[in-house]
């Protein structure tokens, strides 16, 4: 089921609709006060709001994440697309010397990331950005250190991204969903880190002197993630 729009006719962003004065952000805040049922109505209305940047309407290699909570969800969807594509490749072309236990755990992680990707795709429906084209040319998939180094980078980045985006979210349901996913990413990160260096599951690279994870805002995250994707990701509409 589509969380935001099960209405098949709601996909045309250019239709005339509600007054422009009713800014999209207010829709989302209103949506936060209610459950998914109301969200259907609200987002159907958003589709007619010509204030918004249209996600999924990208041309060529540029992808616009959109605005408000939808923009944040597309931001998460972009990161999950990258992670899923990465682990699919890891399992398809396993590195030299991989153990059975590593194969099992990395397959689990692949499935989790695919589940996250598909969840965001289904939830966003017509608001979802297009599929990204990954660029993993910097990764040597036959080499354990190269693969695990990239996995560590992706997982740590994912955790820091969700943590940094939390305060930009307006809807409590979306915030909780992000929370449900970020802790799984942190579990992955701790596992991958231990594979590289036992006991490095939560070291000072990622945890500060107060015992808090170091978070990143979207600009910092996409500066890193952008190296692994051929598309240009336009995040200018994201809340600041």
């Amino acid at each position, binding site marked *: *089921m589509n*969380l935001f729009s099960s209405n098949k006719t709601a996909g045309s962003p250019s239709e005339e609709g509600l007054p422009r004065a009713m800014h999209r952000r207010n829709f989302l805040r209103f949506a*936060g006060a209610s459950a*998914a049922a109301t969200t259907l109505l609200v987002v159907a209305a958003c589709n007619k709001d010509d204030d918004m940047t249209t996600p999924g309407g990208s041309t060529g290699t540029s992808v616009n994440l959109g605005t408000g909570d939808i923009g944040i969800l597309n931001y998460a969807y972009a990161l999950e697309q990258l992670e899923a594509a990465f682990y699919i490749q890891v399992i398809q072309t396993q590195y030299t010397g991989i153990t059975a236990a590593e194969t099992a*755990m990395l397959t*689990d992680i692949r*499935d*989790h990331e*695919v*589940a*996250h990707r*598909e*969840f965001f*795709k*289904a*939830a966003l429906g017509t608001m979802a950005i297009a599929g990204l084209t990954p660029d993993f040319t910097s990764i040597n998939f036959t080499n354990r250190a190269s693969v695990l180094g990239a996995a560590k980078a992706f997982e740590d980045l994912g*955790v820091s991204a*969700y*943590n*940094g985006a*939390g*305060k930009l*979210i*307006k809807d*409590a*349901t979306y*915030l*909780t*969903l992000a*929370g*449900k*996913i*970020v*802790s*799984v*990413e*942190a*579990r*992955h*990160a*701790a*596992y991958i880190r*231990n594979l590289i260096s*036992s*006991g490095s*599951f*939560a*070291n000072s690279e*990622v*945890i*500060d*002197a*107060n*015992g*808090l*994870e*170091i*978070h990143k805002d979207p600009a910092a995250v996409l500066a890193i993630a952008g190296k692994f994707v051929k598309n240009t990701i336009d995040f200018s509409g994201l809340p*600041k």
Partner: protein
Amino acid sequence: MNVLHLLTEIEKHDPEVYGRLDSRRTAMRQFAGIGKKLAAAAVPVAFGSMFRKAYGQTTLTVLEVLNYALTLEYLEAEFYTTALAKSGLIPAGASVSAIQTISTHETQHVAFLRTAITAAGGMPVAKPTFDFSGGSGSGTGPFKDAFNSYQLFLAVAQTLEDTGVRAYKGQAPNLLGKGDVLTAALNIHSVEARHASHVRQMNRAAGFAPTVKPWITGDDPGLGTNNALVAANYAGEGTVSQATINITNIGGQMISSGAASESFDEPLSRDQVLVIIKPFIKA
């Protein structure tokens, strides 16, 4: 903590924020400038005092969340310091090193939360007297050997970490729109998840839980004979439906129900958690 971001974010929702914080906007701007230079440790003090003046009722809710978190962190911190003080409980080398890392973080969380609560005009709750046997003060509860048996110690540690993740997650909606307070809570939440993952790996490596994974499969604690003792801590983790979307085989992908449940961790409410930890607090 970024005070400037916090103020900017609040201003979007509440254009009167500067007026609430201080009738002299210029003074607030000066403060914002100073905020850039404040040491990290001083920032919770700074923003806490602003909130105390500005938002009476909101502060109360945030304080309740922070004091609840503090209670959980007291529990975790004392559990690990007690275990580390017990000679021979935790094997030397990587095991004790990992538990020291975790213990340090929990102690840091206690200090951080106490500072933030005090700064927000609140009174940090006192540390309860704990009964880690889970016997409500009798010392004879089901976990009475947690500091004698490494296996039971790791079982309790895993359960505490997994429960801590659920507890923080459950409070995220209460901190919606609270800017850097929410960020701080999220930044603790993911650290607890890293701990949980690691303790699960320790449990597996030690042979106590040969099939347990770094993530939670279904609502199975993965602790074998100790599962029954901690069932409530894992209740509800097995859900495979998120926002009415079924994750199993989602989008035509081969996602098993186990993987579907692993992919999302589930929250617990404060009431649920308080029921769970009640036996660990001496009445």
